[in-house]
């Protein structure tokens, strides 16, 4: 096999590897998709229990000077 042919073969092999390797998530930082089972649980969701967090934030907003921070846009009521 000539040098060029082997080079081409290597390149093709590399492309095939990238195609297969991407599934193995070898270039991401952090867990792979099958390791994110715990993240799907309700207690690990950032947006879970929204009414409860809203109730807490309502109390803090009406009694304290700071508002928001956790992404919840405080306010909307006259408890100023």
């Amino acid at each position, binding site marked *: 096999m000539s040098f060029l042919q082997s080079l081409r073969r290597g390149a093709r092999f590399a492309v095939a590897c990238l195609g297969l390797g991407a599934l193995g998530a070898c270039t991401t930082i952090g867990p792979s998709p099958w390791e994110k089972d715990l*993240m799907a649980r309700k207690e690990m969701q950032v947006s879970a229990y929204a009414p409860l967090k809203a109730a807490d934030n309502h*109390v803090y907003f*009406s009694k304290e000077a700071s508002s928001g*921070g956790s992404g919840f846009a405080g306010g909307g009521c006259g408890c*100023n």
Partner: protein
Amino acid sequence: MQLRKRRKGSVREQIAALSAGLLAVSGIPAAAQDNPYAPVSGVQDNNFGPGAAYSELDAALLVYQEAGGRVQAIEPSANLAVHGAHGETFSLGLIADAVSGATPNGAVPSDQVQTFLTPVMLSGGHATVTGASGGSTIISLPGIPAVRQYTAAANTLPMDKGFHDHRGAIDFNWSQPLGHISDVGFGGGFSREQDYQAISGNAHIAQNFNGDNTTLSLTLNTELDSSFPFGGVPAPLTVMSGALKSPSTRDKTQLGFVVGLTEVVSRRWLLQFNYSFDSQSGYQNDPYRIISVVDATSGEPTANLYENRPNHRQSQSLFLDNKFDFDPFVTDISLRYFKDDWGITSKTAELSERINLGRSFFIEPDVRWYQQSAANFFHYFLNGSDPLPAFASSDTRLGKFSSLTYGMKVGFNLTGRTELDLRGMYYQQTGDGHPADAIGQLRQQNLFAGTKAAFVFLEYTWNFH
């Protein structure tokens, strides 16, 4: 060439029948062939996740009570979220609250009885008072508009006992993936009570990277508030009176943004970091709140003035939240640092520990510590011999204090699709009620008007297709 166009779904039906037939003759009983399309009796489709369109309904009730006969509130709410099969979400929320009780009016306690005057709402010739119950009297003299009068006993923190208010609010949100963008959306809200209205809007965009382990988001939010207090908007730092005032409304606008980063650091650790910026312009006073002017020697209140706060307020905050899942323990630690140009800085730390006991029950105790510095125009009182400052407020909300919250949440996973959560919380503010610059009789008084409060919150969540 395609399959001949037949009745919709007919090919799949036939394949389903053929497959069932194949497996049946080869010895697999029919019970093994649960079909997620057609709910078979006795089999529940509990598929809630991407690709499944489902809805979630939340109904909640908050009951809130402050110590010492102060504010109490009941707040029912309902929220509906509809999830489409391709990541779209629409949510609609309704909330109502009824608030009543006593609230400090901002004046200092005195060793003498104090009398306060406020306007009376006149509607169609009849006098309406925001709660004549609780110690207010209406005084009307011929030729002079009626006023409401209430007193504070000696050596007690002056409170306006008769206030109550009803509020209703609605909010909605829409979000969906768009092309290569992971999520875009917008939302709005409207809230109205007897003397206040707020209209809000927001828009956001978010992008996932790194195999969906990293999410960057930007949210813009804006709000237009209108204050229309009973009796009109008082001119700032004027003497409290029962006269009708004008203008009748003042507005405030708010504009802000939040930049967020969410990172799945490892299988068990989720991290969230937010930077928020907020800018408010317009009327930011509490139109009912006063500040006492006291005699420079005796410390006796000589006049009560309506408070005044600056027209502009700009604030920033940094927020960090960490969630750790070490089954059956889930720990949540969050920190927040806040700073604004009114001179207030605050620090918040919150810790909660969820303990899953068995499959359908959990308890979650939590504790929150908070500390804030006073606004640079906060005063417990004004010294009569000093010139009047441009801005002054004695609202505890802007003062220096720290607070502790103790809470406990319990949750019951009733079926695969419903959950009942109950939370109790106790909140206590602590501040220095005996500042060094207290004059005369004020040295004997506790000037701190902070709260102790408790609430109970009940929430029922129901998922359905």
